[in-house]
């Protein structure tokens, strides 16, 4: 089951660059929330603060509180633990190149010591079904490498891999931007189904995609969150002129 995310006074720095300023946000459980905004506005940085992936950069620094469920992810648990609860799918599909499809999906479990063969088989099958890839690969699970699939299939493989560790939240950083329209549509349909079990946060610069999959949308600009509201309101009648200018393409 998914959980809600509560962000309070979040600030983030990369060295001297104040990348995120005073972000306050409540992301509802079991919904898809989209984050839109121009390049460099901080939406990707924000999402990486939700699973502490920004800490992989040594000059990154964060203040403020992020509660996932009721867990303070900066004080109550370690980065490694939070990443088991908050999964991430990246812009460019990145399956592990030396591993088979099976091993890719099972990677998160195997690398954390899970050994039970029978249980792994079950989890791999379930994850691949949940990411709408099972039918296409079920005969080649251990024979084909993850890297031999098409782009759209690779991305679904990455989704299956993230789902296999049974997270509560799924973060997706522009998951379809490297994919063709048909693959994109498949991913979007998938997000729709996944909402029932997970809380999904999706960063996208494709507003039509945000409009298609997300109940709520947040607009980021220059490190601040300008507006956060129901998606249909943002796209038919936004409250802030900056939001209107962005979504109608009138910037500059």
């Amino acid at each position, binding site marked *: 089951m998914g959980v809600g995310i509560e962000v309070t006074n979040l600030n983030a720095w990369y060295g001297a660059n104040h990348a995120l300023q005073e972000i306050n946000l409540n992301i509802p459980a079991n919904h898809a929330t989209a984050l839109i905004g121009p390049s460099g506005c901080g939406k990707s940085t924000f999402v990486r603060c939700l699973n502490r992936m920004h800490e992989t950069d040594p000059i990154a620094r964060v203040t403020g509180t992020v509660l996932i469920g009721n867990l303070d992810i900066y004080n109550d648990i370690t980065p490694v633990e939070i990443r088991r609860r908050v999964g991430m799918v990246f812009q460019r599909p990145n399956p592990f190149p030396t591993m088979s499809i099976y091993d890719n999906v099972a990677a998160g479990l195997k690398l954390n010591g899970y050994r039970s063969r029978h249980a792994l088989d079950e989890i791999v099958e379930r994850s691949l079904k949940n990411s709408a890839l099972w039918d296409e690969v079920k005969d080649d699970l251990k024979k084909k490498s993850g890297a031999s699939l098409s782009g759209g299939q690779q991305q679904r493989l990455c989704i299956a891999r993230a789902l296999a560790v049974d997270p509560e939240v799924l973060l997706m950083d522009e998951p379809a931007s490297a994919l063709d329209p048909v693959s994109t549509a498949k991913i979007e349909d998938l997000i729709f189904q996944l909402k029932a079990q997970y809380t999904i946060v999706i960063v996208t610069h494709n507003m039509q995609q945000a409009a298609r999959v997300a109940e709520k949308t947040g607009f980021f600009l220059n490190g601040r969150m300008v507006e956060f509201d129901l998606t249909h309101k943002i796209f038919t009648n936004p409250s802030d002129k900056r939001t*209107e200018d962005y979504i109608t393409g009138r910037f*500059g």
Partner: protein
Amino acid sequence: MTRIRFQQSLEELKEQLLVMAGLAEQAIQRAIEAYRERDLSICDLVSEGELAINRLEREIDQAALDLLAMEQPMAGDLRFILSVIKINAELERVGNAAKSISERVRHMERMAAADLPVNIPKMAELASAMVRKSLQSFIEADADTARSILTMDDAVDAMNKAAFKSLIKVMEEQSHLAPQALNALMISRSLERVADHATNIAEDVIFWVEGADVRHHKSLIKDTEQQDKGGANAS
């Protein structure tokens, strides 16, 4: 400024709609003049104008559809295009009303002139003024002007109701004037419709400018009141 071509397309759409509005307004003026002068040649002009209005309605709808499909308009742009489509339909119906009026005038021309207790030209002027004002609110994107039209509708409604009463009386008491009275009644109703269309245009402008849906305001209040009453009765 980005999306210049799109901006220009929106401007062109607006221009087309204003041309349409001009044609519709002209149709009403001509129809009433035909009524006053009992002039059939002016009725012919109205019929010709109707063809132009219908052609323009199709062009505007097509242009709007293309913009929706090709430009993915959002927020204000989306509401604008949607309101253009709706106003387009309303203006076409105004044209239809003018045509109805001119048809009545054709019939009445064959009858004897009668002095009827109804001021058609006055009603027509009010209805025309409403249409003009609603288009002005569209040009200026002014929701307040649009709102003022909503109240003007009451006056025209009242005039129509009064016309109804007095013309029925004429039909009862001076039965030889019944045909003229009936036609006059139908003209009055057409003008009341024109006023309604102007009101709808005003509501569409408010929707575009403010994103607020103010249609069916009175009936919605009634509906809420009835629901409350029902609730009270049930408990």
